[in-house]
């Protein structure tokens, strides 16, 4: 374990240290230290981000190929740490009735798992990352013990999550057995020389894909998402949607890019089928939702569908140069934009929940008059989620559409376009309730918390900046991929 390996996982170490220290400080300090705790977390996150950007190792991998240290990993490290910090700040607003320290620590531990997922080059690390991300989040969902719905949501999430991990592990076992290695790159090389479509290979591959598909909440493995999102306290849901799922997406990307290259014509149909199913189920069922959190859950399933199109294009045979690179860059950019939008949307929902005691559509009524700024923010997030300019969501979808059309998946692009028209209906229904419907939900005498306003503000700035001038982010994503060995060669 040379110093190089240590440096490559420095951000993870920093986060773990912060998490531990947060627990320690809380053990001694108690209630009054919460403000300083948040300071500690935010400061720590900033340091971690700087370290992950600055402390770059010249080698492309560490720990014998298990941990990859390329631009792709750095991009996701920065994103995940930022999302974690924002989630913790958001959770600060409910520090009265929810153990804030434990919550922060859990989020940090889950973030470490996500960082590993972003940098994994090996199936073992993949499994470890998945579990390290999932277990803290199970607790996050159930953290409000006195609410039955939280526990029920957590239970469903846990049982199905564990079940899926079991399938994943069994899949990995078979792949390890047949290829003799768990390293994605070596596995790909080995399989290339073999007959890639022997049934046993496919058994392992299938189970691997199912496990990952579950973690990314794609249809038909999505059933846990609505209940978990609705049951969990809103900050936890925010982190689950913006953080945990994006971590899983990063892991899926790693696997697809590095490991599944020889199985191209096997992987493509599955991912497309799952993507189309997610888009349809996610958008169509969302129409009926009365509860905004549950609506955002289905919307997240739909957005998973959009992103999976980008993942699918990685393996299309089209001869256009740099297509694979563009596809991954499109998914990366979309993940970042989606994380910001969803976090913002959940932050606003959280604020409304605190003021009106619920997250039903009725609670949003007349928000336009009672708190205009919050309502305006929600309008921007809704527009962005629909994919209407000038919000960032538009360019996310545009890049994905561009990649899909270039990769010959024009019919999938059309499905994306049609289902986003359906999505416009339920996103704008929120706006309808906020501005256009006369209704007076009774307002609880709760002061608006600065923490939430901060998170909402950051969400707005991010969405609008990426909407008006997204070049910076897109170019960063594209350049990050130059270093990824496989993608560098403009296939």
């Amino acid at each position, binding site marked *: 374990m040379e110093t190089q390996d240590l440096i490559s996982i420095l951000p993870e170490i920093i986060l773990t240290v912060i998490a531990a220290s947060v627990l320690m400080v809380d053990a001694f300090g108690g209630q009054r230290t919460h403000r300083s705790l948040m300071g500690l977390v935010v400061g720590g996150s900033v340091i971690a981000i700087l370290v992950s950007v600055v402390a770059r190792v010249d080698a492309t991998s560490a720990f014998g190929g298990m941990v990859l240290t390329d631009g792709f990993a750095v991009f996701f490290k920065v994103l995940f740490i930022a999302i974690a910090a924002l989630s913790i700040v958001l959770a600060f607003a409910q520090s009265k009735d929810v153990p804030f320290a434990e919550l922060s620590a859990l989020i940090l531990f889950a973030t470490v798992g996500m960082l590993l997922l972003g940098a994994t080059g090996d199936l073992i690390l993949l499994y470890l990352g998945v579990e390290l991300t999932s277990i803290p989040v199970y607790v996050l969902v159930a953290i409000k013990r006195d609410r039955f719905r939280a526990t029920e949501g957590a*239970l*469903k999430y846990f*049982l*199905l999550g564990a*079940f*899926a991990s079991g*399938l994943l592990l069994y899949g990995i076992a078979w792949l390890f057995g047949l290829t003799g290695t768990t390293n994605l790159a070596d596995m790909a090389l080995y399989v290339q020389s073999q007959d890639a*479509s*022997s*049934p046993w290979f*496919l*058994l392992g*591959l*299938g*189970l691997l*894909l*199912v496990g990952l*598909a*579950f973690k990314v909440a794609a249809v*038909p*493995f999505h*059933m*846990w998402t*609505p*209940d978990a999102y609705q049951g969990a306290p809103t900050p936890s849901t925010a982190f689950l949607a913006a953080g945990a799922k994006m971590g899983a997406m990063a892991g899926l990307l790693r696997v697809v890019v590095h490991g599944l290259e020889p199985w191209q014509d*096997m992987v493509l*149909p*599955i991912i497309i089928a799952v993507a189309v199913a997610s888009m349809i*189920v996610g958008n*169509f*069922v*969302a*129409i*009926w939702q009365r509860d905004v959190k549950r609506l955002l859950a289905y919307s997240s399933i739909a957005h998973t569908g959009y992103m999976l199109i980008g993942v699918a294009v990685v393996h299309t045979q089209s001869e256009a140069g740099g297509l694979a690179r563009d596809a991954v860059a499109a998914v990366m950019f979309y993940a970042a934009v989606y994380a910001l939008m969803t976090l913002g949307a959940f932050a606003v929902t959280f604020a409304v929940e605190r003021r009106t005691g619920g997250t039903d559509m009725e609670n949003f009524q007349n928000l336009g008059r009672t708190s205009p700024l919050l309502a305006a923010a929600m309008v921007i997030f809704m527009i962005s989620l629909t994919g209407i300019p000038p919000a960032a969501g538009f360019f996310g979808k545009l890049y994905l559409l561009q990649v899909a059309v270039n990769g010959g998946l024009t019919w999938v692009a059309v499905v994306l376009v049609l289902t986003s028209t*359906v999505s416009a209906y339920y996103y704008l229904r929120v706006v309808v309730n906020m501005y256009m419907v006369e209704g007076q939900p009774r307002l609880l005498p709760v002061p608006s918390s600065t923490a939430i306003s901060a998170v909402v503000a950051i969400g707005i700035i991010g969405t609008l900046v990426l909407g008006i001038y997204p070049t910076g982010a897109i170019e960063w994503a594209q350049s990050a991929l130059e270093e990824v060995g496989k993608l560098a060669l403009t296939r």
Partner: protein
Amino acid sequence: MVQVAWLIPALPLIAFAINGALGRTYLKKRTGIIANAGVLGALVVSVLLFVAQLDHAEPETVSLWTWAVSGDFALDIVLRVDALTLVMLLVVTSVSFMVHVYSIGYMDNDPGFWRFFTYLPLFVFAMIMLVMANNLLVLFVFWEAVGLCSYLLIGFWFERQSASAAAVKAFLTNRIGDVGFLIGLLLIWHVFGTLNYDEIFSLAPVVEAARPGILTLICLMLFVGAMGKSAQFPLHVWLPDAMEGPTPVSALIHAATMVTAGVYMVARFNPLYVLSSTAMTVVALVGAFTALFAATIGLTQNDIKRVLAYSTVSQLGLMFMALGVGAFTAAIFHLATHAFFKGLLFLGSGSVIHGTDEEQDMQRMGGLFGKMPVTGATYIIGGLALSGIIPLAGFWSKDELLGATLLSGDLGYLLFVLGALASLLTAVYTFRMIFLTFFGKTRMAAERFSHVHESPRVMTVPLIVLAVGAVGAGFVGVPPEHGLIHNYLHDTFLAAEFAGLVHVPSTVFVLALMAVSTVIALLGILVAYGIFMRRSPAPESVAGLAPPLHALLVNKYYLDDFYDAVLAGGTRTAGGLFAWFDLNIVDGVVNLIGLVVRGVGGGLRRMQTGRLENYAFSVALGTALVLAFYIMMAR
């Protein structure tokens, strides 16, 4: 001198602008003066121009500005001054001036005084421009503009539902005619590539040779426009209803000027009509039939203005008959004389209505001559001119008209019979009107009869002037075929000569015809005298003669009701059907898509049962599908 021609339309337009802007608030009664000044100015300039142009043979043009240039379509607004235009200008401006003077008295106590004197000069401006247009599009533009003015003036007393209804009916019927006109215009553009008169007339023979039959179609389409504007059968229904407007309006627009626009248009396009004999026969037949048809209805009308309205329709029919047989000059001559004596009769009837405090129903009149001597006298002169008694204007123009039909070949005989019959009936209903109104025992309530008074001088002077016109105007066309007007218009209608339609009658034929015409007229007057003066003036006596025929005529052959039911009613029901279709089917489909999407969403939603084993089952099912797919894929 022609450079000043643009003043003729400009003066009434300026009058309109001033009255329109300041009339309501500032000018009020003074708007009458301004309107009169404007129209008088136009009259004076027209006369000056007429005198200056006497020796000129070539038509001159004054171009104002470019209207539009798009590809090979280029169009400038150009005024044209030639013999035909000047004749029309003289007729239009003179009659308009008379009506303007008359209206000052007639509209004196009307609250909308300023509004009346805003619309009237606007009409005069539009009519002048129509006559002075140098291309088909400008003609069409002001063709519709006069239609608008007639809409505004018919519906002048808009609080009366019947007036507003009549206005809309007039505009729509004109619009139906305009559709024909527009199609004709577009065909001309399509075939000729230009809309300017001179180019069209010069290209006409070439086009006829190249595409035989196209000219006939164009002429018929233009004639449809003329039928709409000049109220020829079957588009005549709007003129009688137009009597809802103030009487000076009826006199000016629905007797002297606007309705003659159709005649002017056909006359203007004589080079085209001459080349298509079928179109000429159609024009003649429609004209003749309308003449007789309208005359029959005129017999049974009790409203004094409606009698005159049907008389106008009938006289216009005669003019179209003349055009149809190629006697263009005769038609224009009759148009001019008709303008004077019909204007006189209408203004006279206005004076009667004014004098008898708004009484229009002849059944409740009678014996008014004593009370209104000047109106009565001028009215009789007008009646004599209308019936065609020598030496009044009506005689000469109608006589020449009938002569031309006789000489125009085998169809001519039928036309002559129809024309003669129409003239006979004209004499009958004219003098029925005079006897019922002015002579016999009065049927008006004594108390009301005592109030009847002669109209003020500002109304009677125009009557006298027009009476002089009705007497003197005829001599312009004496002797037949060689009168002043014939030489003047000779160059305009050269095309007719080349086509061999102009026949110079022998003097014995002319004299014989004069005799026949006079006999017809006198016979008509005697018949009217017999029925209405001798037996008993009450109109029931006439009904007794042939009840079913009388009922048919009184109800105007039930044509109006037929139109209302079929055209108006049909459109409304069809519209209702479409509206329902649009709301339920087309919109229905859109909402259906929405419902389907909701339905699918609902179905999928029910799969989310909330029970854990269903979730686990769906995960397992997903895995099974993936593996099944792979097993199928693997060899």
